[in-house]
């Protein structure tokens, strides 16, 4: 772990509690999560591992650029955002634009030449790259040449292990599903002891920022997800017993609600999430979520408005800011749930 990440780890994670039914707000710590849930509830996590999605490439003229993949190279072509010279110490939005490239142009990454097969109308930074390799070889190259997407507020470069959740499995995410950071091994074992079920899905969490205003406004782009049959069964039994379905992270909310919107109920299998949640969305499956600290204007903040009255959400954001909650990927957390505080965390709750 890097010094920066480990210092933040040692500092622990503060947890803002927002009861979305009573509109009460309280402060706690992430270690309290098992006590705030009970055996009727279900926690749904995104088990996507984080890819080393940032690659250094060179154009045919020898100009250096950074490729940030928008998705894992599971297909022969992969969407990516290109950034110009400079590194992560410069904020993404202040980075130089990449050299102007057109379909047919190539980018060399190590010994391999990728070809640009499409440039988006949305932004010249958004391209589609063709890999001249089979599936296994694409991942060999990526794990050899790639590094995790870095953040300008972290001094030391992040290693691949710094950006994994404890339960990361298939590498689908290009940035860490960071809402799961508070779920340490000890916390997972405490949840198991308390009888709180955990279920998984895999969601290809995309880039948080592209450095291009037009593109950033369109985020999140459609993202692939896969819901296992066992998770669908657990969601059904949780709802049948009056428990709460607690999503860990906005990516889990998006996958479950997208599936429910398509089919009326959550269905097992793969799809691409197109749904963007906001205050006009009525969640069909998810009762609430564990997430990072988000500010007005962010797409994550808009998603929270689907669960929380806007005045309450504004109060929570103001409190988080006033009390110095850390807002970034390695920051603090918030739990938005109905009946979180109303009758006391340990008291029995009306189903």
């Amino acid at each position, binding site marked *: 772990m890097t010094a920066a990440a480990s210092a933040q780890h040692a500092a622990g994670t503060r947890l803002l509690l927002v009861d979305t039914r009573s509109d009460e707000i309280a402060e706690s710590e992430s270690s309290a999560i098992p006590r705030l849930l009970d055996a009727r509830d279900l926690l749904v996590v995104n*088990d996507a591992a984080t890819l080393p999605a940032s690659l250094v490439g060179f154009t045919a003229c020898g100009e250096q650029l950074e490729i940030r993949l928008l998705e894992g190279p599971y297909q022969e072509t992969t969407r990516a955002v290109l950034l110009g010279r400079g590194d992560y110490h410069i904020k993404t939005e202040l980075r130089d634009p990449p050299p102007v490239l057109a379909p047919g142009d190539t980018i060399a990454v190590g010994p391999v030449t990728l070809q640009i097969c499409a440039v988006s109308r949305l932004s010249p930074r958004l391209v589609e790259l063709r890999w001249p390799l089979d599936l296994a070889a694409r991942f060999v190259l990526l*794990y050899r040449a790639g590094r995790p997407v870095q953040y300008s507020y972290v001094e030391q470069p992040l290693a691949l292990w710094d950006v994994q959740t404890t339960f990361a499995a298939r590498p689908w995410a290009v940035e860490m599903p960071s809402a799961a950071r508070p779920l340490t091994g000890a916390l997972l074992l405490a949840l198991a002891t308390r009888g709180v079920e955990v279920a998984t899905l895999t969601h290809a969490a995309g880039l948080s920022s592209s450095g291009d205003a037009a593109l950033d406004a369109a985020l999140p782009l459609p993202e692939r997800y896969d819901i296992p049959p066992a998770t669908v069964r657990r969601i059904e039994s949780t709802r049948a017993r009056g428990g709460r379905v607690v999503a860990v992270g906005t990516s889990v909310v998006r996958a479950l609600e997208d599936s429910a919107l398509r089919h009326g109920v959550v269905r097992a299998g793969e799809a691409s999430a197109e749904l963007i949640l906001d205050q006009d969305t009525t969640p069909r499956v998810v009762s609430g979520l564990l997430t990072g600290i988000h500010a007005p204007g962010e797409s994550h903040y808009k998603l929270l408005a689907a669960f929380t009255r806007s005045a309450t959400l504004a109060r929570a954001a103001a409190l988080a800011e006033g009390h110095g909650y850390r807002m970034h990927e390695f920051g603090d957390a918030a739990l938005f749930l109905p009946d979180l505080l109303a009758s006391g965390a340990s008291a029995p709750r009306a189903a």
Partner: protein
Amino acid sequence: MNWADDTTVLITGGSRGLGLALAHELGERGARLALVSPHAGRLSAAAEQLSARGVRALTIRADVGDKEAIHRIVGQAQAVLGPIDVLVHNASTLGPTPLRSLLDTDCEDVTRALEVNLVGPFRLTKALAAGMLVRGRGLIAHISSDAAVESYPDWGAYGLSKAALDHLSRQWAAELSNTPVRVLSIDPGEMDTDMHRDALPGADPSTLLAPQLVARRIVRILENTARYPSGARVLATHAAEEVES
């Protein structure tokens, strides 16, 4: 349904000896396989041998003793094969051969034996066990040795790393006792392998077990883990009667 049919297995040290024999046995039963070894030539030879018997395996060239390799190994494997259900810690190093007294063993060689035989397995399990926990299914098998229990002169670096590996197995089992993840340490017995020849060049091969036979015994154990308490140290010979009768 066959247990291996719906199972993804990662085997370290999978390019020869017991690891390759395990790949044959599990692959023929339908398991999805990832084999890890630092030796490119041996890996491609292993993949060819397996494919001649209709078994497909993903090969990953990496040294489990290298910290930087761990997330690359689990990432490549799970990108292509999906979540790992079974992790077989089979890779190990003897340290320098001919084997030698601790008095003549370089400190760096002890460190290296621990990196490959103990710390590597710890890191790989750490990267995979919580995923197994939340998916509700997982098995971690540590390939041990009688050198973990007996202190044979000249087997110092290897023996102490294997004793520690046995304890690592018990430690994981204790911490994961409330979960569906199961952990075993398996002593395969003395086998006719390159590694054994490196350690004891003069040994009579007719007194040694064929790795193929031991692999069948170990698969029997992996298929029937419910018979053993998690954290147990299992002798592969105990599964012998059932396999060979």
